[in-house]
């Protein structure tokens, strides 16, 4: 066998090996979905969604966890989006050569790598104890806002960066001020990409568990929250709680709740991908 032939065999062997590697990830993903759906799908019905938590697995539902999640995620949106978009616009449009902006940039890169549970510790001390918000929905939302802020900022910066300079110059040429240019030209032009980033941030907030446990989310909440100062639980924490119970009925409940949670996550991510593709196709400067 000559050298060329040997190399060809090696080349093909690697190709097969690589395809196996790629499929390992996808097979595990498939197994995970199959496992959860086969365990939990039959448990999902209207009662499961509208029932309060219960000690008996057959009667327990996710109503309070679902409402808690909607509360927490909505407040997180309201708090984090204006701040994140503002910060992203500042760094890209105002702070280009400013050393402070450089410092902030390094800082954001670092924050993105901080484990989420550390944000929980920050939220517990700062919002829960110092600002005396306790284990309320508001304390949890403020904590999650800090957590998703780097995602929003980075997405905004990328979006604003992609707007061509010629649009800005045209606006300045017509006598617009800096803020007029940003609010009426740059932000509308980058709206699609910013939205994609925002949706991914929501998806992250929906699945986040550890920081909320540290802030003090409860596992058993027998009432639906009505104000931002109420105590709460969220879907991932309900899943965590049910998973760690010994009775097999609760494992079924956990799988059913996971199906609901994954539906939220997949719809959000799918929507983000759809927006990105549509935006990439449509906008050509």
């Amino acid at each position, binding site marked *: 066998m000559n050298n060329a032939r040997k190399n060809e065999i090696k080349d093909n062997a690697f190709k097969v090996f690589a395809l196996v590697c790629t499929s390992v990830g996808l097979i595990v993903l498939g197994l995970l979905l199959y496992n959860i759906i086969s365990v939990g799908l039959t448990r999902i019905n209207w009662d499961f969604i509208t029932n309060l938590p219960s000690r008996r697995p057959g009667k327990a539902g996710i109503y309070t966890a679902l409402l808690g999640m909607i509360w927490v995620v909505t407040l997180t949106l309201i708090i984090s989006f204006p701040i994140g978009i503002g910060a992203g616009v500042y760094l890209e449009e105002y702070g280009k050569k400013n050393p402070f902006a450089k410092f902030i940039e390094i800082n954001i890169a670092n924050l993105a790598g901080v484990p989420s549970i*550390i944000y929980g510790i920050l939220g517990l001390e700062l919002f829960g104890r110092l600002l005396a918000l306790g284990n309320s929905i508001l304390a949890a939302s403020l904590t999650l806002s800090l957590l998703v802020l780097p995602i929003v900022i980075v997405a905004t910066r990328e979006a604003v960066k992609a707007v061509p300079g010629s649009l800005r110059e045209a606006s300045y040429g017509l006598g617009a001020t800096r803020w007029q240019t940003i609010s009426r030209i740059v932000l509308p032009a980058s709206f699609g990409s910013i939205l994609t980033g925002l949706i991914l941030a929501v998806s992250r907030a929906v699945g986040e568990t550890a920081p909320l446990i540290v802030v003090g989310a409860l596992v058993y909440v027998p009432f639906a929250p009505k104000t931002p100062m109420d105590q709460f639980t969220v879907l991932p924490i309900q899943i965590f709680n049910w998973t760690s119970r010994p009775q097999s009925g609760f494992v079924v409940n956990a799988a059913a709740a996971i199906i609901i949670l994954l539906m939220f996550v997949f719809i959000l991510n799918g929507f983000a991908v759809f927006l990105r593709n549509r935006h990439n196709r449509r906008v050509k400067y």
Partner: protein
Amino acid sequence: MQKVKEKIIEAILLICSSITVLTTIGIIIILAIETFQFFKDVSIVEFFTGTEWTPLFANKKFGILPLVSGTLLTTFIAILVALPLGLTIAVYLNEYADKRFKAVIKPLLEVLAAIPTVVYGFFALTFITPILQSFIPSLAGFNALSAGLVMGIMIIPYVSSMSEDALSAVPNSLREAAYGMGSTRLQTAFKVMLPAASSGVIVSVILAISRAIGETMIVAVAAGQEPRLTFNPLNSIETITTYIVQVSMGDVPQNSIEFRSIFAAGITLFGLTFILNNISFWMKRKFVQRYE
């Protein structure tokens, strides 16, 4: 008037960006103050060298090493899975696969990173562990192995996507030069492209390690709550993150020493990831523009 308005808006936007700096400062100050309080009651030497961690028992011992070993064990298993798989996928997508295949596979793999980690925990505990137990009868119900394996699958996209980006940033001229010398695709991939992209690949691995160290829910569900100084993956262990969850879920009174111990554990965790993140940031800065 217009000028004043412009200045005010700029100031507001500056405040928005400063919040991120305040977040970092807040984290450091809070961890430092509470840890300082903690070390008034516990010797710092005992904390970093002690081999027993029992703050929730009557006979309290505060040696962080069992938690560190648990964290490193699950992280090591995860990297053992994610590094070879992720790197091979990156090389394959960049050197072999055609564009359409890549356009389908990359987002599909990234779904792995979008799934909430509590779901992986459920999967590790109720699916992977029973399967592994049928091969390894001595495997505990909660164990580092299955949590680590599942965590490895979860971080594949971190390694594969970022390494792939690093590989595709290598200029085409290098690849053509290698082909011109008569190299095969495999030789080009591993002897030219991968070394040229090495800094980007290393950055991706460091970030994946940092992600694995800070991962909480998978290990909290599937790896157990028994702090144990061991590197045997078949045992039930406890990670730093799990301990913080365990205390948060329990009825520990605030301002007690048990409560303060989560800040000492937290600062250890923060220190580990902070160092890794800064190494990767420094590498990115230093090496990334070499070919431009």
